[in-house]
């Protein structure tokens, strides 16, 4: 780690830890921002590094959300009675129950989507290009519809996640608790992917993106790497879902859990905005996207989607490679790339 590196990571860490005190009113929004970073980062594992445009990653987000809330409730109370609409009884978690359930739920919300990714991945990752994209899109939509039909998890009624236990700390404690969990998840995802991209694993993903047949011909079991990549995405996404379900407090099958039309699209958009296939791109993209979005929602009430649409058009026209791609083109030397001026001249003269 170079000195500059340490300064930057130190700064982000300090900013991340201090943010709830610097902007006390915006804790929730910044928590959401960290989760969006996780969404963009995990999408980029497929979409950017591996060259597989997945539109179904929201599947793991939703599964994580339901698993976490389901475990939190199911460990102590009958889940069916909790979700039943006309239920007469009110269940209340004690603080110990709440935190026990929450942490076990959170761990499972990473593991279960990972297993699902492994099972589905084996069948789906054999598809390439648009076939893979369409197939995953279908998975995401189907998951929402199926979840909307399962009575145990509330079906179309949705499901409330357990409320923060009463008489424990102030109201602020809850949002701080979730804020730091979101920040920690974001940091863990980032550091893990940073490490993974430096290893052989990262190189194989890039090889798959650049020429999968050639990679296979060189003796790489591409399928194993593709599945592993998907499992990694699914685990982190699942935990993000578990956190989101608890923060929002209400899980709706198609609008919150398997929200293909919002989070499912946002994760792709953010990665492309920042520059897909780079480590920092999704991070920058997610932060910029979130700030723009919140700004539009405040100032262009009623026209927010039009403004957002205009933003997307601008991105596609002026920054087709994303913010990182644009920077890379302008300042190639800062990215450790050397430009051979004489070579460029020679090419121009040839024409």
């Amino acid at each position, binding site marked *: 780690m170079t000195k500059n590196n340490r300064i930057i990571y130190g700064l982000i860490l300090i900013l991340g830890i201090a943010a709830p005190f610097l902007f006390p009113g*915006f804790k929730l929004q910044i928590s959401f921002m960290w989760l969006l970073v996780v969404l963009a980062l995990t999408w980029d594992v497929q979409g950017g590094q591996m060259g597989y445009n997945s539109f179904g990653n929201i599947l793991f987000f939703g599964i994580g959300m339901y698993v976490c809330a389901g475990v939190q409730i199911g460990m102590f109370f009958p889940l069916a009675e909790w979700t039943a*609409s006309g239920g007469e009884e009110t269940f209340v978690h004690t603080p110990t129950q709440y935190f026990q359930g929450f942490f076990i739920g959170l761990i499972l919300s990473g593991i279960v989507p990972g297993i699902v990714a492994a099972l589905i991945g084996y069948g789906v990752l054999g598809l390439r290009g648009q076939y893979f994209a369409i197939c995953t899109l279908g998975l995401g939509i189907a998951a929402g519809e199926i979840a909307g039909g399962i009575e145990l998890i509330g079906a179309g009624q949705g499901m409330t996640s357990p409320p923060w236990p009463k008489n424990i700390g102030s109201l602020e404690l809850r949002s701080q608790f979730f804020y730091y969990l979101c920040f920690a998840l974001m940091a863990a995802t980032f550091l893990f992917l940073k490490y993974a991209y430096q290893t052989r694993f990262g190189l194989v993903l890039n090889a798959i993106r650049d020429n999968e047949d050639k990679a296979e011909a060189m003796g790489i079991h591409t399928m194993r790497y593709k599945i592993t990549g998907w499992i990694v995405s699914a685990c982190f996404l699942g935990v993000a879902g578990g956190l989101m379900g608890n923060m929002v407090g209400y899980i709706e099958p198609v609008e919150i859990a398997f929200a293909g039309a919002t989070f499912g699209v946002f994760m792709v958009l953010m990665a492309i905005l920042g520059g897909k296939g780079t480590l920092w791109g999704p991070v920058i993209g997610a932060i910029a996207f979130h700030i723009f979005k919140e700004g539009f929602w405040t100032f262009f009430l009623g026209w927010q989607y039009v403004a957002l649409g205009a933003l997307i058009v601008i991105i596609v026209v002026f920054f087709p490679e994303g913010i990182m791609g644009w920077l890379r083109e302008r300042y190639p030397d800062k990215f450790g790339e050397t430009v051979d001026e004489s070579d460029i001249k020679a090419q121009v003269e040839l024409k």
Partner: protein
Amino acid sequence: MSQYKIKLISMIAFVLMIGLGFTGSPYAADDTIVLGAAVSLSGKYSTAGKHTKNGYELAVKRINSMGGVKVGGKSYQFKVTYYDDESNSGRAAQLAERLIKQDGVQYMLGPYSSGLTKAIAPITEENKIPMVEANGASRSLFTKGYKYLFAVLSAANQYLEVAIDLAVEKNGGKPVKIAMAFEQDAFSQDVRLGILDAAKRTGSKIIIDDKLPKELNDMSATLAKVKAVRPDVLVVSGHSKGALTAVRQISEMKVNVPMLAMTHCDSSSLSKQHGKKAEYALCAAQWHKSLSYSDKFFDTASTFDKDFNAEYGYAPPYQAAESAAALLVWKDAFERANSLDKEKVRDALAKTDMQTFYGNIKFNQQGQNIAKPMVLFQVRCTGDSCENKVVAPTKWASSKLVHPVPKWSER
């Protein structure tokens, strides 16, 4: 790692601070009481969301112009801070948090639809912010032990139970065959539970029980089944879009069914949009202009209808009426509490017992309004102009129920 990243990071940090800095605003000036509301101005509930907002606005204007709210010898004006929740529960929950945490709102008005109210209620509850909501009817809202939630409307399961009773009565007291189709959302699924209860009570049989998708544009599969099995009652509920889709396709496919019972006929202005095709549809409503309730702000139900029409250019559906009533409840509670302290106001809300143009309002332990019955009306046409006529309960009935619905070949 090089300098560009330092620049980049500092740039991001800067943008972040500006971006987050511009949203805050103080919540209450000296003489205003600010209420927060996230309503659907876009998305699938945008029509009903607009009715909700217009209802709120009209009541705010009326109360302010008639002297405002008197608390502690001082007169306050109501002001509502709106956000657009895009008919999305995730967004609604975020906005509720934002209204409370960033905008410092202390009192909330509800959004449109049960699903969105369910998304907001955990947040208002956690922050101990009282919310008077006018558009969340799902029974599940009232079984969670919420203490800060007050609903001025009747619960969703009561919407169409009466229709089943009517069908049984018309069938000579014998059980009927019911076909039903409901949207996959909190409200419609609750209406379904009500029908299940009614079917059980009357011994009726349910022969079709379909779930419809959220963006309800097609239900021809259900209607094809209805044509084949000939039920006595067809029940459909899926907000405004569901009502419009149902009537459009029933008339296109010429489905003959003795009784068609629905929800959301007036918020979708069914009788205007589909005219004679919608005739004889039976609809559940929270309110109707012919009811005989009154208060000093809007006078009677029919004057509310006139005033609303003059202001917004269309007849108020019950969503607008109940939304307006929510403001009257707030005013009453503030004045009885004689304080702006949210706990005191909550206690005053819990003791509400009043009459408004919209109906009587009295909350039970769970915050549900138990003082007001539902009404059923039927779309009736004379010539080409169609109107909603109340057929039940008998106290306000202005016309007799036409049963069975004439066949399409005879219309």
